[in-house]
């Protein structure tokens, strides 16, 4: 489909990793524009664009900036959430490795908008290469006067630091991230107070995802009208990266206008692996409830997916074909959440592990229909009352497993078909 790639325009262009190369494609023009604007106007511009957070929750970015107290001399922080650890998600990595300045520019614009002089990019510990690329880009930006005491000679000070995580999923939760950033055990804080009021080191803090900040750069470059012209409607605007994995021919990160249908996505990456039939797909990372083949015409945006009982999340699309044992797939995710639960709140600590145990029993062939009934009753208790969103995340896939595939699982249980045969994902013969 005809669409100008914006966020990924510098992917594959190694020169863009330097300030000079980045400028060739119009880089840092947006920042120059932002520095001439009143901070309040930047916030208004972002509000008008309808940009919603790309990290998972889809919270309106401009509104988030608006919560930060204005007109005080208090220290404020921008924290960029680059702890991309949702299973299936790898879009931010691409942005950081190929176009680090796009992110740095977004960070400084955000800093200008809320009068913060410091950005911490909290990057997932495993992203060693991305961290290195960012560090080099930041050094170059300091040398070229983009960062430091006077950004582009404007007199506005902004510093950017890369902070590497140590491998905990929970540190991608914004308050868990702040705790980790402060050098404490990474576990979510009780909210309120929200980070916009009491965030990093007790100061008002804006926390934005990598892709969100990259979008900010383009909103300032091309204007909110342009941004709004892309997408489904005024609540779902802008370009969007989709990280596609699983049983497809060409998995990878793809840029589309937000609201592209799943079928278009699938066609864009070469269709189902070896032409097999689609069984289920997860539209937004491990915490998004699964959808079935019958729903493949769905528009992949915040509101349409929410209406279908799932969510856009981080837009990590995991595609499963007819050979997949959905119970095994859900178990894989349940194990992940049980492993990554921080352990402080009761429903998540106990519930994720309980779900794992029951799914293991079903998957291994030792389960009964009673287990499925139990799961249906226990799972809703895990989300909703947990301290942070991990509890809600953990129940997503299991809940949809019961809703969408309950009859199939019951049939398999009655006929004692578990464990289902494992079909190797890669056909080694085909590779050779």
């Amino acid at each position, binding site marked *: 489909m005809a669409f100008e790639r914006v966020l990924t325009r510098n992917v594959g262009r190694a020169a863009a990793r330097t300030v000079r190369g980045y400028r060739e494609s119009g880089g840092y023009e947006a920042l120059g524009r932002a520095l001439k604007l009143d901070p309040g106007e930047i916030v208004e511009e972002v509000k008008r664009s309808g940009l919603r957070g790309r990290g998972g929750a889809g919270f309106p970015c401009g509104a988030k900036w608006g919560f930060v107290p204005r007109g005080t001399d208090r220290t404020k922080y921008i924290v960029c959430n680059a702890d991309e650890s949702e299973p299936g998600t790898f879009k931010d990595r691409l942005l950081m490795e190929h176009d680090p300045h796009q992110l740095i520019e977004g960070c400084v614009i955000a800093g200008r908008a809320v009068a913060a002089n410091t950005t911490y990019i909290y990057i997932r510990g495993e992203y060693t290469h991305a961290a290195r690329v960012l560090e080099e880009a930041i050094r170059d930006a300091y040398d070229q006067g983009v960062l430091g005491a006077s950004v582009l000679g404007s007199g506005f000070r902004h510093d950017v630091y890369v902070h590497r995580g140590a491998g*905990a999923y*929970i540190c991608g939760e914004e308050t868990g991230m702040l705790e980790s950033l402060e050098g404490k*055990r990474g*576990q979510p804080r*009780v*909210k*309120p107070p929200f980070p916009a009021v009491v965030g990093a080191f007790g100061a008002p803090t804006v926390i934005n995802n990598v892709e969100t900040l990259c979008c900010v750069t383009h909103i300032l470059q091309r204007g909110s009208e342009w941004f709004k012209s892309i997408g489904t409607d005024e609540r779902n605007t802008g370009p969007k990266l989709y990280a596609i994995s699983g049983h497809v021919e060409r998995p990878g990160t793809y840029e589309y206008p937000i609201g592209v249908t799943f079928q278009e996505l699938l066609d864009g990456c070469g269709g189902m692996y070896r032409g097999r039939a689609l069984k289920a797909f997860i539209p937004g990372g491990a915490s998004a409830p699964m959808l079935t083949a019958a729903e493949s015409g769905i528009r992949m945006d915040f509101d349409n997916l929410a209406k279908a009982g799932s969510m856009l999340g981080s837009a990590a699309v995991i595609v499963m074909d007819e050979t997949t044992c959905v119970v095994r797939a859900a178990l894989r995710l349940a194990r992940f959440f*049980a*492993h*990554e*639960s*921080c*352990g*402080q*709140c*009761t*429903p998540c*600590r*106990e*519930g*994720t*592990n*309980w779900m794992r*145990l029951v799914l293991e029993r079903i998957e291994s062939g030792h389960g009964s229909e009673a287990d499925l009934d*139990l799961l249906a*009753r*226990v799972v809703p*208790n895990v989300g*909703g*009352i*947990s*301290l942070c969103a991990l509890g809600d995340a953990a129940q997503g896939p299991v809940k949809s497993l019961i809703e969408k595939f309950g009859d199939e699982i019951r049939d398999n249980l009655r006929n004692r078909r578990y464990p289902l045969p494992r079909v190797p994902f890669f056909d080694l013969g085909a590779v050779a």
Partner: protein
Amino acid sequence: MPIVTIDDRTLEVPTGTNLVEAASRVGVQIPHYCYHPRLSVVGQCRMCMVEIQGMPKLQAACSTQVVRDGMVVRTSSETAAEAQRAIMEFLLINHPLDCPICDQAGECGLQDYSFKHGQAFSRFRFEEKRTYPEKERIPLGPHVMLNMNRCIQCTRCIRFTHEVTKTGELSFFERGSHAEIGTFPDKPLDNPLSTCVVDICPVGALTSTRFRFAERVWYLDKKPSICTGCDAGCNITLEHRRGAIRRYKPRFNPEVNDYWMCDFGRATHERYQELPRLAVPRLRKDGEVVAVGWREALDALFHALRAKRADGATALLGSGFLSTEEAWLLRRLAGFVETPHFSIWTDSGPARAIPNPAGGIVGREAAPNRRGAELAGLVAEEGGLDAEALLLGDGASRCATLLVADSDFGKAAHDPKIVERLRAAHFLAVMGWADTPLARAADLVLPVATHAERDGTFVNVNGRLQRFERAFPPPSHVRPAIEVLADLLSRFDPKWASVSTAVVFDLLAEELPALAGLRWAEIPATGVPIVHASAGAAP
């Protein structure tokens, strides 16, 4: 102040009051584990979920503050009750359910809330629960034992060591369903308040090495009392079974010890087991000390006190362990005998600090009531034989009769040299509960009640008058000191026959301006600040 409605009861609370506290003011108990009024709010047990009108999801009551008018809260609506039931289920699926061998049973948060909010069966049908192998009995420090299998990860203990004692010995390790409480290598939980973590632990994970397996808690009888460890005057609950004290627990008093007390204070009752007890009055007859009846013993003391010998003085030595009322009667006795030789002795002890909202309280003496005794008039007079003259000088050798009120008044009562010095009195009489070297050297011994067996008042370091009550009666031939002193005084003036502590206090209050208007029956449970000349004005 904003107005909030909780379960149809409307009240006004200061802005920022959390819902658990607000609800308790109208008698609604919102179940909670991790919340504690003196610790930071972490909202992680999720037991206190309540429904708030206008909010799509249930909210944790502990972390929800009342900041605006018109909040309508339902604590036991269907959805809130279901959430509470779900949390109880989650907490119990991996709990060992070993109540029959658990010290906490009977005062356990899991038991109580299971009964009220839980269900009677388990849906967790797995043979193996999550356990922490080898972590059933980990001594965290000298006073606290950890059984990780029973822990519900509420982290109250961790926050206590970080926020109250500021020693930070405890921390959270591992994560998810394997998250556990622990100490760092070579850094045991050893601070003066360490046993408080046992009190705040809502389950049987942390138990006191002192109290472990000592008694099932439902057999314990409880009385409000005051710790005798120092002059801080920590409010305690004295818990005993048929006269055997099993433990002291802190009793909430925000003006004194708040929710806490020190490990030293908790152990003070052990002295009643460590030292031999005086059981019957003893009198030296023809060089031989023999058991006698009370009448004979008191007559002997009366005659010794009344016989004003030309060759020696009559001296009375009290102690900081006397109740204010006992001290006052001792002072009356000095009046009847017309002696200027009366005083008290108190050992100075290590400073014992207890945090409270007013910035803390520090006890500096090894006895609870020097101030009360002084208030009652036991202040040495100029030129009199005072405690220093008796204990450190040769004052006793100039005494015809010396009465020491408390055989265990301090370290000196166990020091052979000082006992020798006091023994120089012609007639040495000793009152007390403990058979100390001093008691063994005496000519007359009067066995009186221990702290647990009497009632009275103490005045603490800040000049706060606090009442304690008799938890159980003394053994058959032992009498409370107040009764013994009254009996003795009645030999001088019959009006003193059979007066009780309450009567003595009321008389005392009539006499002393500092206690004006107070009556025994009306002393508040948390004490009352009084103005006391020698202790300075009450804060």
